[in-house]
């Protein structure tokens, strides 16, 4: 019996969530008193994973698995799960894993708990806590099948160092057909993505127009943060759709979320609730966002942000 963790990578590099799922898988394996097996596909340096408790690492290197493809990756994961007799498979909630896990669930006839936020509260019945109703609640879900798949929500468990010795072996996977051909990939390079960011700086209609975003970008740069926006801002075309966060946009689960000139509508809050610390900057002391915030500044963004940038620069330099 084993717990199988899939440590996802992009262009050979692990995402932070890969370290988080390995940390998590280690604990689940301890709870179940079974072995931990970590699988990586086309990662450059798998040995990094030992730091988070990986003992047995299986690597698959194959050019036809690049870029990511859900069906092919699912086929590899299924083969490894069968060979290692995995009873629990853990994946992160990266875009890739969200496509992959449901297919693996069908392949293994396994119950799948997506958006899981903590360690199993019981292993018999096997129960996990998951996000539901767009972050407005949690469900305690029992997985009733023999095999189980857990999708771990980002930044819900954390990265825990737990150095272990171990082995790295090559796994000879059979490559399935994908049915999909990748024609091209456009990635914004040199920018922190919302999915990966520890800090997100987000601005709303209070900014008045797209010409006022340079200060938001500068603030983001000082904090090594990703930029985001409210829905009307992307609907108005002030910012790209990829920056729209909220219930109908991208979810944000960063450590720090700074909301500038955003009122805090329920649909916006639903998407950013999972962020740990929220700072709100708004001229209106009655803005609903203050009720959901940890720290707040009642003030005009056009005065507060330039000052905050200067002060943060001084702080970083000190």
């Amino acid at each position, binding site marked *: 019996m084993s717990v199988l963790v899939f440590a996802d990578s992009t262009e050979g590099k692990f995402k932070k969530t890969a370290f988080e799922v390995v940390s998590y898988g280690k604990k689940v394996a301890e709870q179940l008193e079974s072995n931990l097996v970590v699988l990586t596909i086309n990662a450059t340096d798998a040995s990094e994973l030992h730091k988070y408790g990986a003992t047995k690492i299986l690597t698959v290197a194959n050019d036809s698995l690049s*870029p990511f493809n*859900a069906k092919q990756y699912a086929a590899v994961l299924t083969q490894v799960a069968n060979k290692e007799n995995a009873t629990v498979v853990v994946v992160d909630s990266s*875009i*890739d894993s*969200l*496509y992959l*896990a*449901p*297919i693996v*669930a*069908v*392949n293994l006839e*396994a*119950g*799948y708990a*997506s*958006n899981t936020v903590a360690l199993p509260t019981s292993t018999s019945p096997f129960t996990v*806590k998951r996000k*539901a*109703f767009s972050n*407005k*609640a949690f*469900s*305690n*879900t*029992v997985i*009733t099948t023999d095999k189980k798949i857990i*999708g771990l929500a980002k930044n819900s468990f954390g990265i825990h160092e737990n150095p272990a010795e171990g082995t790295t072996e090559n796994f000879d996977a059979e490559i399935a057909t994908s*049915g*999909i051909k*990748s024609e091209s*990939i456009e*990635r914004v390079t040199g*920018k922190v*993505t919302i*999915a*990966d960011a520890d*800090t997100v700086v987000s601005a709303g209609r209070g900014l008045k127009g797209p010409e006022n975003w340079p200060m938001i970008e500068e603030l983001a740069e000082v*904090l090594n943060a990703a930029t985001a926006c409210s829905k009307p801002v992307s*609907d108005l075309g002030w910012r790209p*759709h*990829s920056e729209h966060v909220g219930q*109908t946009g991208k979810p944000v689960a960063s450590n720090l979320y700074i909301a500038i000139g955003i009122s805090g509508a329920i649909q916006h809050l639903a998407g950013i609730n999972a962020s*740990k*610390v929220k*700072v*709100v900057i708004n001229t209106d002391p009655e803005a609903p966002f*203050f009720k*959901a915030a*940890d*720290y*707040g*500044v*009642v003030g*005009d963004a056009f*005065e507060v942000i330039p*000052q*905050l940038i200067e*002060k*943060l620069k001084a702080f970083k330099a000190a």
Partner: protein
Amino acid sequence: MKILVCISHVPDTTSKINFTNNDAEFDKNGVQFVINPYDEFCLTRAMWFKEKQGATVTVVNVGGTETEPTLRKALAIGADDAIRVNTNPADGFLVAKELAAVVKNGGYDLVLAGKESADYNGQMVPGMLASLTDFNFINGCVAMEVEGTSVTAKREIDGGNQTVTTNLPLVVGGQKGIVEEKDLRIPNMRGIMMARKKPLQVLEPTGAAASTSISSFEKPVPKGAVKLVDADNLDELINLLHNEAKVI
């Protein structure tokens, strides 16, 4: 082209979420149910294929009689007919298995579903359905064109977009971008009148089993009050973020 659009019936985005029966059940009291926002984008795209390329559009829901008004709304937007699979959608796997039976029996070429539903946020039905039917699969789809049986689509990936080509039959998990917000359709009077006469077929379930069950719900622990910092004292904000919250 025969298109099937999967419609999940979810609480309106402004709904307050409460539970009853010892936190074991979602409290539907006073909650307004709507077509899942992502499914609305897919349905509008399907209407486009119907108008421009002569596709037929069927909408389907797995659920009890209470979901019929939602299906009627989809008919009013312009779908040709509707199917309701008469069973409790206990979990994503069960829903996917019931939908797979509908897809196989109906001979659909293109199945459009949302990337996630706003109630249980499973993010699993489209992938499971693709796997169960052995159709091709594109998730996070933000644009698509079909010509004959060839499909060109754009999907969202971390930090960008990927353009892919594939063939029908295909399952798509769609989101905003597959059509734009401003192009979403609102049912008009004529549509609503016509929808009353359109066929809504009720199918008995195949009896697929669920693989998960919900034992209880919880609400997030209420937050402490916000700490307000004076706009003239931003050093204090930096101090709090550094020393107290430890996030910078």
